[in-house]
């Protein structure tokens, strides 16, 4: 027994000693080998993407087209999950120092990586490749520009649209032109309601919840009331008079009984529960498939003025990649937003083309003749403005505002109260960002 005990003890001691010895030696012996690229060989870059389902297939085809068209660069397309999941994985990857060269980043996530210094400035590559930046729609291009340098190239971009049920309008005897202005729309909401005894089977309008980006859609509304979420210097303005008026307008839609808040308003629009909704142009494919009635699209309604924002996602190159790989990565990004590619992507996905020349091309003109609803977002695009800092630059700003809107549409809280609270939270969350921004941009 004694000998067995000693044996076991010595094994344990010896094992611990060996582990320590190996550990300390390994870090000095096994240095990471440098990746050497021979000239003339194909450079491989990794691309992390967030498009799934039908859009994912279209994007895979786009990558294949790029890989087959030349031999210098091979893009490895890797789906990582939703916009949120991709951004979170990218954060972990940066910590673990295993970073892809290209990543898809959504409108509310790219700024966080910019502030952390993780994004590569792209203007140099843009100039070298002699890209015609004037051919991009201004609002789409400029959203990724900080201090004159481009960090976030547009790719899958969308705007909110006003979708309406033409059959329901016809049945109610309501002219379609009333959707141009909130006042005229409100006048006709009673006519657009359908009741079966005491239950309402068709509401005039429907609101989504925070998870379905109601804060993005409301941004257009608050702008049409001549308000805004914030100013460029992060002054929070959502609780000022125009914002409160817009918020109370939302409250009245539910309090007066002609609109209700739901979780998935595009699905309910497709089943005929709502005569009209605001939703992304990216939802058009799904509505086209599910709606059993004739439907149309229009610009976001005006109030005192017209207001509309953009959304979606774009491409960025990560700053940690090697120079040769960054150049190769930019070749793909430039390809993805070239006129031919953006036309292909737009036709397949429902997102808008990011290039003016793509819209004017013969292919797209023919496509729009067959699908007039797809043209609305493109015609609305020149009238759009960059999004407010409070939604896209403050972490979680979108969900904070969305929560306040849920208070208004679900709990019928007065907008002044709801927005006061939202404003307070936004101001708190903005402080570290303003500091970080001062460090980065001076």
């Amino acid at each position, binding site marked *: 027994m004694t000998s067995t005990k000693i044996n*076991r*003890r010595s094994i344990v001691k010896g094992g611990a000693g060996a582990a320590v010895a190996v550990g300390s030696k*390994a*870090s000095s012996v*096994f*240095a*990471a*080998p440098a990746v050497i690229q021979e000239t003339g060989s194909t450079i491989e870059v*990794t691309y*992390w993407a*967030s*498009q*799934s*389902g*039908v*859009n*994912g297939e279209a994007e895979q085809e786009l990558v294949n087209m790029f890989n087959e068209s030349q031999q210098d660069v091979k893009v*490895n397309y*890797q*789906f*990582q*999950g*939703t*916009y949120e*999941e991709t951004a979170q*994985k990218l954060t*972990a*990857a940066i*910590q*673990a*120092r*295993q970073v*892809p060269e290209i990543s898809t980043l959504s409108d509310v996530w790219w700024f966080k990586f910019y502030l952390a210094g993780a994004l590569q400035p792209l203007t140099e590559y843009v100039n070298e490749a002699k890209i015609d930046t004037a051919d991009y729609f201004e609002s789409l291009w400029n959203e990724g520009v900080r201090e004159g340098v481009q960090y976030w190239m547009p790719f899958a971009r969308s705007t909110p649209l006003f979708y309406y049920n033409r059959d329901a309008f016809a049945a109610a005897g309501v002219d379609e032109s009333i959707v141009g202005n909130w006042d005229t729309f409100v006048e006709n909401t009673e006519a657009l309601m359908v009741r079966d005894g005491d239950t309402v089977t068709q509401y005039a309008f429907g609101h989504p919840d925070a998870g*379905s980006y109601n804060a993005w859609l409301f941004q257009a509304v608050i702008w049409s009331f001549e308000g805004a979420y914030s100013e460029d210097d992060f002054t929070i303005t959502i609780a000022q008079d125009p914002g409160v008026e817009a918020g109370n307008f939302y409250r009245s839609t539910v309090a007066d009984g002609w609109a209700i808040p739901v979780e*998935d308003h*595009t*699905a*309910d629009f*497709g*089943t005929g*529960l709502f005569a009209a909704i605001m939703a*992304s142009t*990216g*939802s058009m*494919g*799904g*509505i086209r*498939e*599910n709606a*059993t009635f004739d439907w149309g699209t229009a610009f976001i309604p005006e109030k005192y003025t017209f207001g509309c924002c953009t959304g979606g996602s774009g491409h960025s190159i990560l700053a940690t990649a090697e120079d040769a790989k960054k150049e190769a990565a930019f070749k793909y990004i430039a390809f993805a937003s070239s006129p031919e590619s953006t036309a292909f992507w737009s036709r397949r996905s*429902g997102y808008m083309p990011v290039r003016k020349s793509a819209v004017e091309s013969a292919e797209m003109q023919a496509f729009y003749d067959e699908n007039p609803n797809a043209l609305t977002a493109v015609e609305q695009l020149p009238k759009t403005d960059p999004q407010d800092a409070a939604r896209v630059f403050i972490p979680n700003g979108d969900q904070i505002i969305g929560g306040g809107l849920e208070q208004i549409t679900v709990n019928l809280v007065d907008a002044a109260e709801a927005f006061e609270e939202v404003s307070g939270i936004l101001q708190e969350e903005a402080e570290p960002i303003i500091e970080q921004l001062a460090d980065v941009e001076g």
Partner: protein
Amino acid sequence: MADFSTNRAIVFQRSLGYLAMILIVLVIGVPIFWMLSGSLKTTQEIYSTNIQWVPASPRWGNYADAWNAAPFERFYFNSILITALGSSLEIINATLTAYALAFLRFPGKNLIFVILLAALMIPAQVTILPNYVFFGSTVFDLIGESWINTYQAIILPGASVAFGTFLMRQSFLGLPREVIDAAKVDGAGHFRILRDVVLPMGKPVIVTFALISVVAKWNEYLWPLVITTTQEMRPLTVGISYLFDAEGNNAWGVIMAATFFVVFPLLVVFMFAQRFIIEGLTAGATKG
């Protein structure tokens, strides 16, 4: 008179029992039925505001669509590999460690057990980032390539779970000491005792734990999601997330069909393992 009231009591208790069983069957069964029914519906039927328990005309095409929408053969292969290797490792580790904690004497035994208990209280989510950094950065520094997006990275963090060790240790401590002492007197070494005495007597617990482990590994989502970057390495649970549409217009019929692909193998396992579960639950319920 006494007989009559006892009869009523028995009938009353029995009805309560049946009522509880029916309730539980409904709570567990209705969502599964809904999933199966949904997998045969068109998207319009699913989104309609009237509840349709049985689809008007079953759309079997959903299953074909689901299978073709993503590389399911690969997902199945990955899931089976991860579950088989992961569960085997977990069971072996748990059994050996529990044996040591229950039957051996060595310095620091109590300290190790306390650390084990402490590990039980750490939520898995907390370990995600440290593990990721380890497999990426630390492993890269050690051997020159990272282990992100590899099978070993998916399996190793779950290869030893405190829960299994704890469960087995408690069970082994409850085994009759006389049998083990008798084996020792016969000159049996530790491995013989483990193989011939402890394992047969502890079979119910081991099988129960094996089932828990298999189900947990098969259904694991968060860690494989984080550690894999390509579709070829992903198990079923992560793979079906490719079918979701970012814009919210999901083809729920296809997704339900895909979910059935994930659930089906476990149902088969449970059907075969039923005998062991019942054996394990009722072992010791009757004497002799």
